[in-house]
């Protein structure tokens, strides 16, 4: 049975495709966007999250740990990563939910049971399932198996992707996907490497390929202050998008710093801290500039 690694399932998801949806978050991503809202999605393996603010220092986790990897210090419970085997026993023992296991392996049938629970909401609203992440395309076989099953059950599917994948794989996925939400982050490849961690060439050509083959795609542009909101980049985006075959609309996703708390909880350095006040254009201005290319631009969905 093919297995996948996910880290969350979100019900009543209303900003990731049509209608009311269930969003499945795949774990693992080839990119490393500086503004990433889901830092827990980056690594493809299971991690243990610790929230000091919830910890009551009862010591339950220390007793439960078979590898003696934990100790109570001034900073709360510390994990010796050389000893931790991520078995999750400390998480089960934690009463206050200060410890959380991020990431779990699942099989398609298990996910389908969860997805089917909200079937009437999809029926009523024209919704369905969105697969997001992380990056869904790094688990292509599992992704395809899940998409096939959804198609069998007549459930609308959306894949939310950064498009950084082998074109052949993407084509196989596209065959079972009803809609792509495809991110464009920067037109300049060097800057793309700088802020996303990978070059953009294959991403842009994959987008063109999907559209040329008649697949439904909505382009999404996260507008990140000081990173991709300069008029020159937006102009290049506009020109590139109009050069593509007809797309199903462009969405502008304004930046917000709600992820800060997560970074603190994960103890990861948030690389957006210092630049958030350096925006050159607002989301509205970006939308306006893009609309000049005759594009149907919406903000926030």
């Amino acid at each position, binding site marked *: 049975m093919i297995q996948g690694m996910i880290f969350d399932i979100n019900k*009543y998801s209303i900003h990731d495709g049509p209608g*009311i949806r269930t969003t499945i978050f795949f774990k693992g991503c080839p990119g490393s966007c500086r503004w990433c809202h889901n830092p827990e999605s980056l690594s493809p393996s299971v991690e243990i999250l610790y929230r000091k603010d919830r910890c009551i220092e*009862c010591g339950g986790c220390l007793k439960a740990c078979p590898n003696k990897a934990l100790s109570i210090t001034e900073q709360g419970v510390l994990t010796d990563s050389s000893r931790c085997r991520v078995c999750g026993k400390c998480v089960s023992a934690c009463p206050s939910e200060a410890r959380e296991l991020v990431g779990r392996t699942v099989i398609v049938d298990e996910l389908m049971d969860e997805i089917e*629970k909200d079937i009437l909401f999809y*029926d009523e*609203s024209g919704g369905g399932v969105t697969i997001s992440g992380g990056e869904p395309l790094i688990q292509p076989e599992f992704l395809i198996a899940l998409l096939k099953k959804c198609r069998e059950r007549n459930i609308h599917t959306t894949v939310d992707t950064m498009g950084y994948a082998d074109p052949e794989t993407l084509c196989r996925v596209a065959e079972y996907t009803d809609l792509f939400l495809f991110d464009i982050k920067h037109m300049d490849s060097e800057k793309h490497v700088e802020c996303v961690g990978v070059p953009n060439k294959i991403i842009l050509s994959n987008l063109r390929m999907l559209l040329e083959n008649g697949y439904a795609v909505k382009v999404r542009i996260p507008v990140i202050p000081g990173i991709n909101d300069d008029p020159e980049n937006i102009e290049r985006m506009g020109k590139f998008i109009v050069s593509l075959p007809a797309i199903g609309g462009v969405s502008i996703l304004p930046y917000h710093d709600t992820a800060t708390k997560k970074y603190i909880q994960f103890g990861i350095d948030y690389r957006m801290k210092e630049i958030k006040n350096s925006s050159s254009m607002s989301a509205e201005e970006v939308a306006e500039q893009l609309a000049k290319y005759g594009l149907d631009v919406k903000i*926030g969905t």
Partner: protein
Amino acid sequence: MNDRIEYLRKESYEAPVTLSTERAELITEFYKENYGKYPVPVMRALALKYLCENKTIYIGKYELIVGERGPFPKAVSTYPELTCHSVGDLEILNSREKTRYSVSNEAIKVYEDKIIPYWRGRTMRDRIFSDLSDEWKESYTAGIFTEFMEQRAPGHTTLDGKFYSKGLYDFKEDIYESLEGLDFKNDPDAMSKQAQLKGMVIACDAAIIFAERHADLAKNMASRESNPRRKKELKIIASNCHRVPAHAPGNFWEALQMYWFMHLGTITELNGWDAMNPGHLDRYFYPFYKQDLENKKLARDEAMELLECFWIKFNNHPAPPKVGITDAESGTYNDFTNINIGGVLQDGSDGVNELSYLMLEVMDEIHLLQPQGNIQLSRKNPDRFLKAACRVIRKGYGYPSIFNADTVIEQMIRTGKTVEDAREGGTSGCVETGAFGKEAYILTGYLNTPKILETTLNNGVDPIKGKKIGIETGDPGGFKSFDELFEAFKLQLHHFVEIKMKGNQYIERMYAEHVPAVFLSVLVDDCISKGKDYNDGGPRYNTNYIQCVGIGTITDSLSAIKKWVFEEGCIKMNELLEALRSDFEGKEPLRLMLINKTPRYGNDDDYVDSIMQQVFNALYDEIDGRPNTKEGKYHIVMLPTTCHIYFGSVMGASADGRKAKMPVSEGISPVQGADRNGPTAVIKSAGKMDHIKTGGTLLNMKLMPGILDGEDGISKLAKLVRTYFRYDAHHVQFNVIDALTLRKAQEKPEEYRALIVRVAGYSDYFCDIGKDLQNEIISRTLQGEL
């Protein structure tokens, strides 16, 4: 909003709530002089007539719809024949922090000198408490159940459309016909029927006299008025009051005034619960609206202005002052008038019309505490109607609430109404289902289901008072299985329901005998043809409800015990009970484990949702179908008002990790904060309850404003509601407000006086409700705060 509406709205909003002794003085004078001279219904009708002949008549500056119960707006009447407030009560009312009623020294003097000396020992309240059994009193004071009729009369009804085509003179004809048909030779009840019917005639006259006095005053004011526009308005008011309620209304303005006199008549006669509900106003008023528009006698904005004047009148009438447990279970100025919009017509077709939309606009503009508004949403109603309601909901006043018209109809058909009567029915008060204009559907009291579990876990003893109030169902430490525990719970439930029921039947007869609602009986079918009172089985349908509270708390508690004690075995029963007794003192990890690791209701988890169904079925099996004394039956509703705060306050800690004295869950909502999988999971869990078998359920959801952004947010909220209703769900209402705003309002109430929030089946000013309830509302899980 034009200047007139702005003025009237502000006046109503700012008027202090005061206690008026006028009604108490008049009724005392009348009783002193007349008690014992007439059959009871005739005496009650004459008492109403005496009130109508002698009370102060008030016509406010700029008003277009006239009439007040008290001598001026927000001056609240008292009903000493039911509850005679003591000086201590009046002092509490005057000084308490929340829902205060300003009581003057003169008023206290009047009570001391005139009211209390006559009524003490004679009131319904005094007699109920002296007559009922000790076991009833013990359960009552332990907080197992409450009693709705200890301070207020049975009300809970809704008027229908009949008096828009018939005036009181026409009703009198019907009454005379019924009188003529009395069969003194063969019918042993003919004498009591005659008294009832004679009373009804007098009650009609009383209302007509009351209206005529308004006509006289308006005419008088018109003659002295210098402003020609106002002069003209006063003349029309005089003519309206001369015409209605004596005759059927002839135009839109008169139709509004007609309802208002009916409303005042019923709330002057008695202090029935839920004041009075007008029913499907959009459909009753529509023919007048259409006709006046077609004849160019009325423009849309004039209709809106009249409706707004009408709306404001409700807000001038805070609930009669409640004290003691009745105040605890229903601590609000809101008197629960709830206007229905939408639904289906008697023939089953879509009932939404232009006025439905206009009324949503009125609600949006006026947004005062009262009246409540709701939409009855049928699958036959268009989405644009639902979306128009969602746009008002987005503003955050907590209304309109949304009811599933199709389920409401099915509930009524299940309980024996004809299809036509069911379609003309709807919901009133908070969430109660009833056949409008044809049914007495009486709420009789709340039942504290988690407290019954607590008593079970203590083998029949109330651990708070240390007193045995239940029966011995076994030492829980000896229970071998969850089923054994549940069987013991069912035995305790049966025990307490029996006690409640005996009390109910007794009180029901007391009202039937001593306090008939003669005027209300004129307006509810088939009191006239039966010659019987509203309080004595006169209506076509006679339903009693028991409101079950805390389904979330009891479900999660049982889930915890089932999982940790009986399945996993990691907690011993006695260890758990000890922790509960000590309020988890020194056992915080255990408490958090119970909160965080127990499968909990509200997450679409069949493990625990099936326990909810098990509890629900136990309540249904125990209560539904029991007979009342009026050839009607008992059913259950799942509704809390503010009783979940009171019920929590009489309890120790519970197995779901709830600390002692904290509120229990409200309505059928999950325990505050227990739902962690978003609104669809809450809806799925709540949808597993069999709503058709109830007379109403209440689901509260709190949404972050951002979730409703744009037309897309509105449309998705609408779809969320539609999906809930595909599970035959009864009702849902939304608080659209973020927790931060509520916390700020707690800190600086003076800046947030106008902030309205949804409490249970009604909205209230956030700053007017108790701190416990404020905290409880803040702790309800906010959907969208991710």
